[in-house]
């Protein structure tokens, strides 16, 4: 029995849903971050991440598969030339959804979905890695990764500029 797609159904028909998601993916790769409803963001995330995985593969077959969803050749070019190589060492999780205040007018829950810009911190554990060989190594790196986050919590009254700098460093 086929497994139903997770998340909300969008639009009025399957074709409309496909078009909505394709347009959202195109906008996301064009602008890097987009504001949309939470339901649409949650549906867009798996699609966008699969497209980025194809962009990381980078061959002509992958490019043609992406072109069936994202019809804009310029956007596909940026996806394969810039976005794909940027995520070369990131094992998935290329996008981030942050909920924002509900929309004025219809109170719809809104969210911002963006491509993760921050460099990868901490230990990357792949599924095929043997956990026996590296036990002592990840613990030390996790402490290092969490150190910059712990620093702002000590002083809650940091100004906004300082916080922004901290975010950039992180």
């Amino acid at each position, binding site marked *: 029995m086929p497994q139903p797609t997770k998340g909300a159904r969008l639009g009025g028909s399957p074709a409309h849903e496909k078009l909505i998601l394709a347009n959202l993916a195109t906008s996301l790769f064009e602008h890097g971050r987009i504001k949309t409803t939470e339901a649409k963001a949650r549906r867009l995330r798996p699609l966008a991440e699969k497209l980025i995985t194809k962009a990381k593969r980078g061959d002509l077959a992958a490019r043609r598969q992406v072109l069936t969803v994202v019809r804009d050749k310029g956007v596909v070019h940026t996806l394969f030339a810039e976005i794909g190589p940027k995520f070369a060492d990131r094992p998935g999780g290329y996008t981030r959804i*942050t*909920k*924002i*205040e509900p929309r004025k007018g219809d109170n719809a829950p809104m969210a*911002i979905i963006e491509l993760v810009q921050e460099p990868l911190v901490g230990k990357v554990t792949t599924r095929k890695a043997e956990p026996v060989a590296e036990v002592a190594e990840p613990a030390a790196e996790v402490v290092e990764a969490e150190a910059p*986050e712990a620093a*702002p*919590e000590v002083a*809650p009254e*940091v100004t*906004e500029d300082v*916080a*922004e700098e*901290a*975010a950039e460093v*992180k």
Partner: protein
Amino acid sequence: MAVPKRKKSRSNTRHRRSQWKTAVPTLVACPQCREPKLPHIACSACGTYDRRQVIAPSA
């Protein structure tokens, strides 16, 4: 077309409307600016979530 046979009394109307109440939203203090904000949602005052600038601050 079906229409009401009797006038709805003021008492009935008011009893019905007495159940029509608003609920107080759950709010938490923003870790960045201490303003009350909705939980798990970016602060609308300073525009941060998890100390990361997400949207432009309102002020």
